[in-house]
């Protein structure tokens, strides 16, 4: 009996997927679909939160009041994205506290790109331009992802991200139109961020075992390599426009495929950073753990006060 019901639930689910109808929190869904989503959404949320750190590193040193305001607002937006995404993941039955704990213990991952340090002001531009650019490339298709709350969160996120990307491009442009020193600063940052950004799309398709299932469930819409190729094709002309040299001697236009061929990615570095050996993995987790530990008394006090206030209200009612 139960098997039949289950089967028909699964059929309904598959039908919805097939006809591009969104899955909503109360709908039945396969356990693996739920798990995949929780993993992906929380990872995405964690990336927003950890992603506040490298750029946040330049808030106190931003070179003008206007840039400082823009940067502050941007980092704040990232906190907001984290909030939307944690909420979306919570609709799948995992609490924010639980997700936080997994982040802090190192169990959950976040985008490896944030394990690289920001060493100059140009890095703030490079992150906005390249990293947010890659993020958008990944995220725009997610606005049509099959899980409703996730898709809706992504719509809001993408709108702001594309704004951030423009701001990053503008920083790079200002530097590239500036003094020799500023141009060098921009190029130097570009050199450091280019390859790690390409790694943001994840391992090569043949080494990405989850991709197929995710595509069938319409969580993902394109493969890693497809998105990476699109990104390169979009960014190379922008770099040329800025007068920056792409740090890849193998890069060249391939007329046949209508796209760029590019050099081999150092997958050792990628896996190494994923494993925890990036330049900043330790620092990032340390910073988040510190915030969490030092904030414990605040959260406890807020809770205690809320309880007292509720009791008082009940009494007076």
């Amino acid at each position: 009996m139960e098997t039949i019901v289950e089967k028909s639930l699964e059929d309904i689910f598959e039908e919805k997927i097939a006809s591009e109808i969104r899955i909503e929190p109360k709908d039945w869904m396969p356990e693996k679909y739920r798990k995949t989503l929780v993993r992906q959404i929380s990872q995405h949320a964690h990336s927003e939160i950890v992603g506040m750190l490298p750029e946040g590193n330049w808030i106190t040193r931003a070179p003008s009041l206007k840039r400082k305001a823009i940067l502050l607002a941007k980092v704040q937006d990232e906190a907001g994205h984290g909030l939307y995404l944690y909420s979306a993941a919570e609709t799948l039955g995992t609490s924010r506290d639980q997700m936080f704990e997994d982040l802090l213990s190192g169990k959950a991952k976040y985008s490896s790109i944030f394990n690289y340090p920001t060493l100059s002001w140009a890095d703030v531009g490079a992150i906005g331009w390249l990293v947010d650019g890659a993020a958008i490339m990944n995220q725009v298709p997610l606005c049509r992802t099959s899980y409703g709350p996730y898709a809706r969160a992504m719509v809001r996120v993408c709108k702001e991200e594309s704004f951030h990307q423009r701001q990053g491009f503008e920083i790079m442009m200002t530097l590239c139109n500036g003094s020799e020193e500023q141009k060098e600063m921009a190029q130097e940052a570009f050199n450091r961020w280019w390859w790690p950004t390409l790694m943001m799309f994840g391992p090569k398709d043949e080494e990405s075992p989850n991709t197929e299932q995710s595509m069938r469930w319409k969580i993902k819409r394109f493969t890693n390599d497809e998105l990476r190729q699109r990104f390169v094709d979009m960014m190379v002309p922008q770099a040329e426009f800025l007068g920056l040299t792409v740090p890849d001697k193998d890069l060249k236009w391939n007329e046949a495929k209508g796209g760029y061929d590019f050099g081999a990615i150092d997958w050792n570095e990628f896996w190494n950073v994923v494993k925890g050996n990036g330049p900043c993995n330790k620092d990032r987790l340390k910073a988040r753990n510190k915030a969490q530990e030092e904030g414990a008394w605040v959260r406890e006090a807020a809770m205690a006060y809320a309880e007292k206030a509720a009791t008082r209200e009940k009494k007076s009612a």
Partner: protein
Amino acid sequence: RQLVFDYTLQLADTSLILSHRLAEWCGHGPILEQDMAMTNISLDLLGEARNLYQYAAELEGKGHTEDDLAYLRDAVAYKNPLLVEQPNGNFGDTVLRQFIFDTFHYFFLKELQNSTDHRLAAIAEKSLKEASYHIKWSSEWVIRLGDGTEESKKRMEAAIDELWTYSGELFEATPTEKALQELDIIPDYTSIKAEWDKHVAQVLQEATLALPQDQWMQSGGKYGRHSEHLGYILSDLQYLQRTYPGQKW
């Protein structure tokens, strides 16, 4: 004009330095929502500072920009009161510093709206909306932490012990301020102090925290005599402008 310039700069420095301190929390707050709230306040104050620096630059009439005024003056030229440059400490210290300032700021802006200097009045009007949110936020947190757990109460008591001594300077008029008060360009501080006292007493009572006794009040910031903390703020704040002078960013 020189007086208004000096004073506008003092207000701008005050908002900028407090904004800078709050911005140091960004990404390190105890609760995501409060991280965002502090950044909000920081952004509001930064916006206010920019309006003020722009006005000051106009008053000065030497072709300086807001950035010249913020980035190219050394510590002794800064005229913010000592309170706003105090280190963030823990979240309770930050909340209390904010509470002392926000309460002043709110009642002050309310009066400054009536300034005979229309530009200052306009800036005050614009900032008042934000300031009314700030005073609400910090008052609520003082109450929440004061009447929260035993630990949070202890921390708030320590914060009061640490920071109260910087509250007096807000109401201590310098010769510049006195002159402007006589010209009705800025409000008298007596009535603002009375409103400040009232609100502070109310909130501390609700927070089950003791109102501090009269005590020695530190001052000097408005005369450029700062604590040793300001220099470090400026060496970060000004680093890029100083290192690569005269560039566009």
